[in-house]
């Protein structure tokens, strides 16, 4: 039991509902695949690059197979057939398709057995790369060590990967533990992943494999210098969720934003599409030893933080169960929440503290991701800096896992170099100054904090019960999350969803499920 008395029955009830909800989703997901999942498999089979028009080969190939009406058997099969038929590599198949040189009818001659054999072989070596990076990370961590929790997480968002590198290295020196490269505004709606190093983004920098590589190298370098492994974060979300997960796994990213609900609600991505994508992307992430960050904190940017606190908790329960089914360990579940109560609200701090402590206790092993004030930040940078300090106070006092540092300029611009330094300084000062305070204080039994926490918990349990009855899809249609309504067939990307044929083949998924020990239903506890 933690510091705050919480109704354990309610916790169990909520978790049970979430488990049922997750099973419902999983059942739906299991029967389907998407264009980006297929592209992911091709990437893991070694296909990379873009053609002369800038179209990534994996898109070219998947679109091509789709046109042929062949995609629902799985792209892997067809590429294997071509590889065997022509005796060429996967990449060569892609190039050949670009030049219209593959005769797919001719490829049908290859036996199912041969196809599968090659498929499993490629899948194995694809996953091998990921495993190597996971091991590499562990070696780094062993050798260099890491910062204490809460990890100090800061963003870089210049739009130019080379400026990002400077800002990231400076931040690491100043004390950051995690560097997140924010994506340009448009990217989540792109149904392909741009290629190469990029220098022109808005409010962020394109997520490309080359950019990942450049930043990973920069952080490894500075990590050596400061004697601390510096984690790299990017976004496995949007229309290319699993592809980016794979790229992140291969380039040794350590943390990835990954949450279908976020995409549905805040990017208007079709719910079927992104939930299917999420299930597969999370397996890759699980296998890669990456920590996911979920996005329920965002609900409080549109809904009120006092009124809607329980929706965040409910979503965390759902995300926990979905994550479990993809093989993620609790230690990889960076469930999101946020410090978003109006600063002028009397006793607002008490409510924030109650929520943070409650979340900490309900998910004791998860590296909870705690988001700073954003909605009520204003151009008053001096007041903003104190709001961030209060946030850092709560983060430390309640032992959050990942502290996403607030910037005093949040209301106005993406961080300048100095903003980030001041923000890290803020966190280091406050956290060090109250280091052991949490061991010294107890919350009044039956007091305001306890009452608030249990109220939120009760509402969340009730909401999950409702969602369980409705199903998650309907619940979203009714606007139960973030005050936003999305329809089952609306939004972007539904055309990329297809039903798997009976003979659909995805050796990566099969191997991953085996490795991760997931498959049928997973027990909720």
């Amino acid at each position: 039991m933690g510091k705050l008395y919480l109704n354990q029955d309610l916790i169990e009830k909520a978790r049970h509902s979430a488990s049922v909800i997750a099973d419902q989703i999983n059942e739906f997901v299991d029967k389907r695949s998407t264009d980006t999942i297929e592209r992911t498999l091709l990437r893991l089979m070694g296909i990379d690059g873009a053609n002369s028009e800038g179209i990534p080969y994996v898109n070219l190939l998947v679109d091509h197979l789709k046109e042929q009406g062949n995609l629902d058997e799985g792209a892997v099969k067809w590429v294997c057939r071509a590889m065997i038929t022509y005796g060429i590599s996967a990449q060569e198949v892609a190039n050949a398709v670009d030049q219209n040189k593959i005769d797919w009818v001719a490829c049908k001659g290859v036996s199912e057995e041969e196809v599968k054999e090659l498929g499993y072989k490629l899948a194995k070596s694809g996953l091998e790369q990921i495993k190597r990076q996971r091991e590499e990370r562990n070696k780094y961590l062993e050798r260099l060590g890491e910062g204490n929790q809460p990890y100090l997480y800061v963003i870089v968002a210049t739009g130019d990967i080379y400026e990002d590198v400077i800002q990231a290295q400076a931040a690491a020196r100043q004390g950051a533990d995690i560097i997140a490269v924010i994506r340009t505004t448009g990217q989540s709606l792109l149904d392909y992943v741009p290629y190469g190093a990029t220098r022109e983004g808005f409010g962020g920098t394109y997520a490309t494999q080359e950019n990942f590589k450049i930043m990973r190298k920069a952080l490894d370098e500075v990590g050596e210098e400061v004697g601390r492994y510096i984690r790299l974060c990017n976004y496995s979300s949007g229309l290319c969720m699993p592809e980016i997960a794979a790229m992140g796994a291969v380039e040794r990213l350590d943390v990835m934003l990954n949450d279908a609900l976020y995409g549905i609600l805040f990017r208007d991505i079709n719910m079927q599409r992104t939930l299917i994508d999420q299930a597969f992307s999370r397996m890759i992430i699980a296998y890669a030893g990456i920590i996911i960050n979920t996005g329920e904190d965002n609900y409080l940017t549109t809904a009120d933080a006092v009124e809607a606190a329980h929706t965040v908790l409910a979503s965390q329960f759902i995300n926990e169960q979905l994550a479990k089914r993809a093989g993620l360990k609790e230690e990889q579940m960076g469930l999101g929440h946020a410090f978003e109560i109006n600063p002028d609200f009397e006793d607002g701090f008490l409510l924030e503290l109650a929520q943070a402590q409650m979340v900490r206790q309900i998910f004791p092993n998860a590296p909870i991701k705690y988001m700073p004030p954003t909605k009520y930040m204003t151009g008053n940078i001096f007041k903003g800096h104190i709001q961030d300090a209060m946030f850092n106070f709560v983060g430390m006092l309640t032992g959050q896992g990942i502290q996403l540092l607030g910037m005093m300029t949040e209301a106005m611009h993406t961080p300048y170099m100095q903003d980030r330094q001041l923000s890290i300084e803020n966190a280091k000062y406050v956290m060090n100054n109250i280091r052991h305070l949490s061991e010294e204080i107890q919350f009044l039994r039956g007091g305001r904090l306890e009452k608030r926490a249990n109220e939120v918990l009760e509402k969340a349990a009730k909401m999950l019960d409702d969602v369980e009855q409705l199903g998650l899809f309907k619940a979203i249609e009714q606007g139960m999350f973030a005050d936003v309504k999305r329809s089952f067939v609306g939004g972007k990307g539904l055309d990329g969803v297809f039903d798997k044929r009976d003979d659909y083949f995805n050796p990566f998924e099969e191997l991953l499920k085996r490795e991760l020990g997931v498959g049928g239903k997973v027990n909720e506890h």
Partner: protein
Amino acid sequence: MSIDFTKIKPYGDTVNDGAVQLSFTLPVPYGDEAKEAAKLIAKKMGLEEIQVYHMKDLGENFTFFILYGKLIHSIDFTKIKVSKLENKRMDFYEINRKIEEEIKRKIKVVGACTGTDAHTVGIDAIMNMKGYHGEYGLERYQMIEAYNLGAQVSNEDLLAKAIEVDADVILVSQVVTQKGIHLSNLTELVELVEAAGLRKKVLLICGGPRINHELALELGYDAGFGSGTVAADVASFIVDQMIKRNIT
């Protein structure tokens, strides 16, 4: 204390002391030379008695500074003319009544947050039923027909919708401004509207936290609204303009 409004200077604790605080980062390595560089920058800005209050090595050969100084410049406050919206601000009831009486039909308004910008809260605050800060949004006005297309809407789609419903007013929200992306988004829309021959027919209004009326005028809009705007501000302007321009 008598203030000479023709020579206004910043004030710290004594009239005309010119006290100003500034902070910035320079891409130079930490050290005495960096400090001097910061002072030279401040000097070029017109500061005297410059004091470096704080300097910090940011790593990577960047140095951060906090400075204070006394500004030599002053400005003539009596000459300031701000281009402001001239219409008077009406309330929900007045606006509806005025439309009914003077325009005699519903006003059609189409709005969106355009380009890759996904911030809906601002445009929703103006358009959605529930509104903002206790003031109803445009959807709630009986005499206004409001179409809120949401966010991430291309300028083409927005214009198409405006044509489809024969809109009187187009509302555009722009929240992301990094690298001037709002400027190109906003300019593109004006060009599209002009190319479609509709510039005279529709009121073009933009808004967002880093938008102001002056900027809007410069970009070719009829008005611009910043932080804290409520629907009645916009509706008052619309009604006033439509009457003035005889768009009925």
